[in-house]
């Protein structure tokens, strides 16, 4: 089917195929083509990787804690049940089948007996005693080879799984380190300016804003923040000389310990920042503050 299209035509289809695999003739042609064209296969993989990263655009939607715990428990229960039944990487075989055995069971001999008794027809007498011995030896070799093949395949599968697990663990670790490096880079360095925010009333929270002027990244780190009331959230505001009204810089909520890290990107000239404030707003945020801020920090105070 891929013969209906030229190489260049198929190559032009790769990008769309990566974004939305087609079930039609074109999709089939592309899949057939990439199976035999390393260059296009690599190009398709590149497009798929780009498409996969679009997942990060989904607005962050953490699961409520109870729901998250429920799903996690169900998954682990299912995984545990699966492990006790059919172990991944160790396919089950029907009882009595040639590859069915308990771990303690000898690998070859019982099956020779079984097969000799039930599955292998008696040899004609003309083979004589030597013929029988040769046939038996052939079966032993055959079953031995089969057993070796099964064992090696099982071992290979186990190794592949260990590599997969190690790869995931390594990636996760590397990702964790990268994210911490990224956070540290945002918080320190000569290009980072710090604005201290203090509570306006009796409320205890405090916060610091780390403004990385090189990257225009703003990172607010807050402490002792109470949970906002139901249907409410906290919203960060930048008061600048370039805008007549406060600039909304996103909403956030603290974790169960009262801490919060909120990041945003907003390019601003150093002299244009007047103050930073946090107010309580309806869930989803407000175009402009609707309540008095409970945390305020002046840009000139540092």
């Amino acid at each position, binding site marked *: 089917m891929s013969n209906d299209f030229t190489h260049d035509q198929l190559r032009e289809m790769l990008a769309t195929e990566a974004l939305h695999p087609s079930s039609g003739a074109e999709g089939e042609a592309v899949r057939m083509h990439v199976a035999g064209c390393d260059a296009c296969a690599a190009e398709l993989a590149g497009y798929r990787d780009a498409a996969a990263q*679009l997942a990060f655009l989904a607005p962050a939607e953490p699961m409520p804690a109870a729901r998250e715990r429920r799903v996690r428990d169900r998954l682990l229960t299912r995984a545990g049940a699966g492990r006790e039944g059919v172990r991944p990487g160790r396919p089950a075989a029907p009882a009595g089948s040639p590859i069915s055995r308990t771990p303690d069971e000898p690998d070859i001999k019982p099956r020779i007996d079984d097969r000799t008794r039930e599955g292998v027809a008696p040899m004609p007498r003309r083979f004589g005693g030597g013929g029988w011995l040769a046939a038996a030896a052939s079966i032993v070799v055959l079953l031995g080879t089969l057993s070796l093949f099964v064992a090696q395949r099982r071992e290979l599968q186990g190794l592949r799984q260990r590599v997969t697990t190690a790869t995931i663990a390594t990636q996760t670790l590397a990702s964790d380190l990268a994210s911490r490096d990224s956070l540290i880079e945002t918080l320190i360095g000569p290009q980072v300016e710090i604005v201290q925010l203090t509570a306006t009333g009796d409320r205890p929270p405090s916060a610091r804003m780390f403004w990385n002027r090189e990257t225009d990244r703003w990172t607010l780190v807050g402490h002792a923040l109470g949970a906002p009331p139901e249907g409410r959230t906290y919203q960060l505001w930048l008061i600048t000389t370039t805008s007549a009204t406060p600039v909304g810089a996103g909403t956030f909520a603290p974790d169960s310990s009262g801490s919060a890290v*909120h990041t945003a*990107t907003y390019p601003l000239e150093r002299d244009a920042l007047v103050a930073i404030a946090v107010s309580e707003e309806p869930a989803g945020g407000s175009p402009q503050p609707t309540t008095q801020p409970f945390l305020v920090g002046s840009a000139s105070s540092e």
Partner: protein
Amino acid sequence: MAQGDEHALGTLFDRWATLVNSVAVRIVQDPDEAEEIVEDTFWQAWRQADRYEGERGTVAAWLGTIARSRALDRLRAHRRSREEPWAQPPAEHPTTSSPEPIAHTSDPARDAEHADQRERVARALDALSAEQRETILLAYFGGLSQSEIAERCGLPLGTVKTRTRLAMEKLRGLLATLDEGVRR
């Protein structure tokens, strides 16, 4: 993980549940259904861990792809059963010109990383034209085929195909450039 190490599955879940749930909620717009998609996604990852190839993409991208596929399956099933009109156009993605909130969790470093990734992809998407951006988002989050996008936007199919191809080429290049920038 596929060896039966449930701890690995738990770790994977803790690390990426928010991302997977975000993709699911974005597509199906229903937290209850998203919950099932999250479970399906991690279950599939658990069962098919030996198919994961680290050199071909990150764990996050792998999980995001599974979640999207699961969510789109459900979305299409709903559309078929209800014969409802297509979903509304995707909400505007985060841009680099205005601050965006990040959701809270108990892991600030993880939040910061997600925000970084999101910003990086958003920055790349911002470099596309509005039409290209719309096409990409309709296909990715709306699960619309090229023909469906053409019908929805009132455009010739060829125009949509060309637009998608050019957009994906540009997006791939921009993401690679931004990756280089991060590594430097």
